[in-house]
């Protein structure tokens, strides 16, 4: 059974077909990029996979559960338990420190554990910045806090929306390197991006155009090795 499966999914706003008969599968442990120009339906797809929106038609199976039929409340629970979200805008709570932001995800999920949160920050190389507020961190560091927060509850899948969109090249490399690390540890990654450089390091790239899947590129050279050390 695939971890994620979309079967003939539509999302229709009036006359606009934001998603138009999309079907795809993502296997456990896979690293998939979703690419496309703006307006191609990437965000809509991201929202549906992220349990923040429901399709107009079709089935979305996450870990065998059809999330297109679930109530808003259940969707919150599924999102909390199975999905780790990473956003383009970093989105940290600005009055909580880095470690507290990571603990926030634990708080909503189960029980906050400061030690574990600190370890997660160490994994993303921010062990010494744990007590800093987001305003005292650089963009790259903030995004790494988001990565630590996304993976703290051991989600089934990490869903990243333009994770490097607001980062400079050096920080982009750090984040991509982190993705490699997570992939090697068996985490399923779905990365929405319009940056070909970020997209092509994945195992597979799905290209969306006008709400339809137009192309699928398999990365023949994918080794799974960490590129930067």
């Amino acid at each position: 059974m695939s971890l994620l499966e979309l079967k003939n999914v539509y999302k229709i706003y009036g006359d606009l077909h934001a998603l138009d008969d999309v079907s795809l599968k993502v296997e456990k442990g896979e690293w998939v990029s979703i690419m496309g120009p703006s307006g191609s339906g990437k965000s809509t797809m991201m929202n549906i996979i992220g349990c923040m929106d429901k399709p107009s038609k079709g089935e979305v199976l996450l870990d065998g559960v059809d999330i297109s039929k679930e109530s808003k409340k259940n969707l919150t629970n599924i999102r909390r338990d199975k999905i780790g979200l990473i956003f383009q805008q970093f989105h940290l709570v600005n009055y909580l420190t880095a470690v507290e932001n990571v603990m926030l995800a634990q708080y909503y999920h189960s029980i906050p554990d400061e030690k574990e949160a600190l370890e997660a920050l160490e994994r993303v190389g921010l062990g010494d910045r744990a007590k800093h507020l987001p305003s005292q961190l650089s963009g790259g560091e903030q995004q790494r806090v988001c990565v630590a927060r996304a993976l703290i509850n051991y989600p089934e899948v990490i869903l990243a929306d333009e994770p490097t969109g607001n980062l400079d090249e050096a920080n982009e490399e750090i984040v991509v390197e982190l993705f490699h690390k997570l992939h090697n540890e068996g985490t399923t990654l779905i990365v929405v991006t319009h940056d070909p450089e970020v997209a092509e390091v994945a195992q597979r790239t799905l290209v969306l155009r006008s709400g339809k899947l137009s192309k699928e590129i398999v990365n023949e050279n994918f080794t799974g090795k960490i590129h930067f050390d």
Partner: protein
Amino acid sequence: MKKRKMFIRMITASLMRRRSRMIVALLSIAIGATILSGLVSIYYDVPRQMGAQFRNYGANMIFTGEDGSLGLDEVIAGEKKIDPAELVGAAPYRYENVRINDIPVVAAGTDPQGVQKTSPYWRVEGSWFSGGGELLVGASVAESFRIKSGDVIDVSFTPAAQEDESGEEEFVMDNFKTFTVMGILQTGGSEENYIYMSLDDLRELTGTEGSIDVAELSVSAGQEELSAYIDAINSGVKGVHASLVKRVTASEATVLTKLQALVLLVTIVVLALTMICVATTMTAVVAERRKEIGLRKAIGASDKSIIQEFMGESMLLGLLGGALGSVLGYVFAQQVSINVFSSSISFRPVLVPVTVIASIAVTGISSLMPIRSATDVDPAMVLKGE
């Protein structure tokens, strides 16, 4: 337990690290709490304050004899029924017809200290009288006899004639006593028609024990308490008939009721204004934090936990504002009391928890609507925005 710790850590971080924002909310709550606790202090202190003020207008209770005669001992027995802390003063009066230069005038024997307390509005030119041949002369008497303070005058009294064996009245000599006029009394009322001396002096002048005609008492108490005293005295003290000076007590009660109603009305208006102010502030706080709410929901917060967090924050604000307000409220009430009533207010410890709880409740209730609207935030919409 650990979860609760994180909850407290979050809401204190929100208040402490967003200080400039929160200070505005805290101030609006604290000002509301200040006015609230100040006004409640004043509300409860008004009867005491006004009671003391009203006591300047004279006695509010009188004792008379049941059969026309009243002994000093009976008056004292009656006074004992009244809480000494509430008894401002008592003055017994014994009236006798005496003569000055052979012209009749009414002399009142009384307790000089008692009168000073029951009739604080008496204005005296010269000095106050005490026992030992000292006299206070009413202004109209003084005018008729051209008496001024410092004069030494003789006052005479004609004892009742006794009948001899033949049935004819025996001739009796007048009693004389020399008095020093200490002061001239001006009240603008009938008190100016009398001369005042101590009871002992009057006894010496008349040569008889006599009886008290009336005793005036000034009691600092509410109307209900006064009525209770009246009942206790009338049923418990033989020979004394106590009654209220209705003119005084009824107008006291009317003024008090109106004043308290006014304070209550102002308190309610302030409470309503505080609620509007807090609700507005909380609406602004929620609007400003839509993104944060969206983020929290995106990473798995339920509506319930969003409500809990914001409610926790606003109640903590209510607690701090209430604590601050109860201290400032005392200062406020004290200032009002000193400036309006010229006396200090007593600190009521019970007002501290009452203010804090009221402040938490008001903040909680007025935050309810804005916080409920916080749960409508759609995480997908908010997180997309630049």
